[in-house]
């Protein structure tokens, strides 16, 4: 089975994302599993960025730190990585001039010259480089040619033809000059089941559409903007309104208003935007208005590293907003989970009339993941938590109580416009009717009512993924988007004979008293693995369950974990 990583480096604006998109889909359609991610500086032009694609014959859910093919679109990429990378280095001698490096690992290809000759456009160097990579891998060129057809069709036949000629010329040039082994020869021409290559953001947006979202309000902020742009692009065809608010405070209050009117609603932002939304989250808690809130985490405090990744907002999201009220937090591990958990979030938000958070991060949201086709029949769109038609008929005119005290703590809603009834929702403490009150008795009743939802909510929360079931001496404890790297590292270490497993949480809050089964916590040693500096999940776990994990593998440099670095870090913890 091949497992190859390609890094494409250049200045912002040179189209690394275009190549990685083209190559990613080429590999997908060749029957391979693909994981690709971006390492971008926060700027529009210049600087140094790279896209990295990992392709494999078996599922991959995270990056590899071993690069097998380096594609240099500029000189800086070559200078930065030529010594550390052992694999093939594709570069353009024109970028280097005198003293261009030579040797077995270098594969010079006149990327820009070919692009100028065949396409009269230096930007087509992307297609040349893509063709060259396909040749080095030993794959068929056909899927790439097909993709160029689809991608450039809107720009006309001439552009399509020129790009295809560039890809072919790159393919031929690499074929003639590359003397090493083909890196992925055993796959070519094999047709697997059709799979998707989809980013976490796209999966979240699709999940929202599948949940009957009808109103989205937001303010642009990396890495959450891609969710908003995707939904905006689909808004006309799928009948939803996407409103760009003047700030995140407005965004969340608009969303609360729309949800109050009965439309399914979501907001997404990153940590700084969420900080502005916090008062609104408290309003959701008090008015018991359903809302889905996505926080695509990035390194903070303040503006932090806007285009990079971290799992640094967990404790913030678990506790943000004044007062005490129930909430749920999901942290999808993959794009597939992002899709289904968004749907579950919409369902639970409405069923319990609470805020439900989705914690993404730049790594989850911006990376592209290979996933089986989403099963729409597994998504739920049925309305939850409304007064039944029968109960409505039995009500005398204008006697509906929005905050009626109930066993479950959930008071069935009517929506404004219901004939013969009105509803009052209030951010002040309120009576069952929704009017302002100062009564101590009513206050106690209302606090109890809201908190009573937690036991019901806990029943809906799925347990962590545990592998192996109960036999390992060591377990990593992780959550969210680090799953791919953790799963792979555990597999690699087990192959070396280490008695290690993983416990991975995607539904991270609320946590039951036995969030980690006692049969494991009492016998095995635990190692927290988190993409933050203080082990936030381990701290949450201690707060909620009393369990203490003192071994931690933490990473907080703005970059995601790779399996290789986890292997060495876990070994250090175990002392192996």
């Amino acid at each position: 089975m091949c497992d190859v990583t390609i890094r494409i480096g250049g200045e912002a604006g040179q189209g690394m994302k275009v190549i990685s998109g083209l190559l990613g889909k080429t590999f997908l359609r060749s029957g391979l599993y693909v994981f690709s991610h971006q390492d971008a500086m926060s700027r529009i032009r210049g600087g140094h960025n790279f896209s990295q694609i990992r392709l494999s014959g078996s599922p991959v859910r995270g990056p590899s730190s071993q690069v097998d093919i380096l594609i240099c679109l500029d000189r800086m990429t070559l200078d930065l990585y030529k010594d550390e990378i052992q694999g093939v280095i594709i570069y353009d001698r024109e970028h280097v001039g005198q003293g261009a490096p030579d040797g077995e690992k270098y594969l010079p290809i006149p990327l820009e010259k070919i692009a100028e000759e065949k396409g009269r456009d230096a930007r087509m160097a992307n297609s040349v480089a893509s063709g060259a990579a396909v040749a080095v891998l030993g794959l068929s060129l056909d899927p790439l040619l097909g993709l160029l057809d689809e991608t450039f069709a809107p720009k006309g036949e001439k552009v399509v033809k020129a790009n295809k000629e560039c890809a072919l010329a790159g393919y031929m040039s690499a074929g003639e000059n590359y003397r090493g082994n083909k890196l992925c020869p055993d796959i070519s021409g094999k047709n697997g089941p059709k799979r998707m290559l989809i980013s976490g953001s796209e999966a979240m947006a699709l999940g929202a559409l599948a949940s009957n979202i009808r109103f989205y309000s937001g303010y642009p902020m990396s890495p959450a903007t891609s969710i908003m742009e995707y939904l905006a692009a689909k808004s006309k065809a799928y009948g939803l309104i996407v409103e760009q608010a003047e700030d995140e405070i407005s965004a969340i209050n608009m969303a609360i208003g729309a949800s109050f009117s009965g439309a399914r609603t979501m907001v997404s932002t990153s940590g700084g935007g969420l900080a502005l939304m916090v008062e609104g989250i408290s309003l959701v808690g008090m008015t018991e208005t359903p809302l889905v809130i996505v926080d695509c985490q990035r390194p903070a405090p303040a503006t932090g590293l806007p285009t990079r990744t971290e799992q640094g907002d967990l404790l913030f999201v678990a506790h943000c907003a004044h007062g005490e009220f129930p909430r749920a937090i999901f942290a999808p591990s993959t794009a597939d989970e992002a899709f289904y958990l968004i749907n579950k979030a919409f369902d639970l938000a409405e069923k319990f009339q609470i805020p439900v958070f989705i914690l993404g991060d730049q790594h989850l949201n911006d990376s592209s993941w290979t996933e089986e086709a989403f099963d729409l029949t597994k998504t739920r769109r049925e309305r939850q938590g409304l007064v039944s038609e029968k109960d409505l008929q039995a009500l005398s005119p204008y006697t509906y109580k929005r905050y009626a005290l109930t066993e479950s703590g959930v008071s069935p809603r009517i929506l404004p416009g219901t004939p013969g009834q009105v509803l009052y929702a209030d951010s002040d403490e309120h009576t069952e009717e929704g009017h302002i009150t100062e009564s101590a008795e009513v206050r106690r009743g209302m606090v109890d009512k809201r908190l009573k939802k937690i036991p019901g909510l806990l029943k809906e929360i799925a347990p962590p993924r545990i592998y192996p079931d109960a036999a390992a001496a060591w377990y990593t404890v992780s959550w969210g988007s680090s799953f791919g790297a953790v799963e792979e590292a555990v597999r690699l270490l087990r192959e070396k004979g280490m008695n290690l497993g993983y416990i991975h949480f995607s539904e991270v809050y609320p946590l039951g008293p036995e969030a980690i089964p006692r049969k494991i916590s009492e016998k095995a040693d635990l190692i927290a693995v988190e993409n933050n500096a203080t082990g936030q999940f381990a701290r949450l776990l201690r707060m909620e369950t009393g369990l203490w994990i003192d071994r931690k593998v933490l990473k907080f440099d703005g970059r995601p974990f790779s399996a290789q670095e986890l292997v060495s870090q876990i070994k250090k913890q175990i002392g192996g």
Partner: protein
Amino acid sequence: MTKPEDYRSGDPIAWCPGCGNFGILNAWKKALSQLDLKPEQILMVSGIGQAAKLPHYLRCNTFNGLHGRALPAATGAKIANHELVVIAEGGDGDGYAEGGNHFIHAMRRNVDLSYFVHNNQIYGLTKGQASPTSDICMVTGTTPEGNPFSPERPLALAVASNCSFVARGYVGEMDLLKDLMVEAIKNESFSLLEILQPCVSFNKSNTYDWYKDRVYKLEAGSYDPFSQTAAFQKALEWGDRIPIGVLYRSHRKAYEEFAGLKGTEPLFRRVRKTEDLKGLADEFF
């Protein structure tokens, strides 16, 4: 026909005796019955402040949200169900200070809402601090040496923003106030109605007597509200003479028309079926 009593709610009123809000509440009931709206057709969205309590004293759907955030919540509620008649209501602190940014953008967005701002030039609920509309030199709890700032001129801001309906009422002129409420609600774009209202407890300067000598009505025959220049002058007029009535009107296409909502099924009622989603993910294969 509905009657003013049809809008009475059972909630006991918590305003000071003599508060201008009582007059506003009465004008409200008259306006709603003149419009012949059923209570369930109306949604009032308010923030926090004495004015923002008003919806509790009316029989109508109410969302009494956060201080300063009535307009965003009203915007979302109206977009999700454009069949509702949506009115945002609050005071000068709520709307012009805490919610100032939303006020500007609500006029730009031009959703078919009416925004009624009770302007008493003081913070009442928190017991007497300066507001954005407090007169210069006014002594309050937070400006013991006198308010050093020139007051905001919200109506001038509205005229500059080409707000499609800009009016000012006064609680001492009940019939006009009721008429302005009716006109604001009828206008199919964003409407601003500022209501001058003495605060008997905390504003000892801008009293009923103070207003009585100053307010004058803009007469329909001699004043053209469609002139932005004239409206701008009127919106800046304050002090010895204070104009009330409709200051400005402009024909603007409402948000609902741009967004294609008008005449369609409200968003909240639309249901997406599994077959509607077919093909949605095709681009990812």
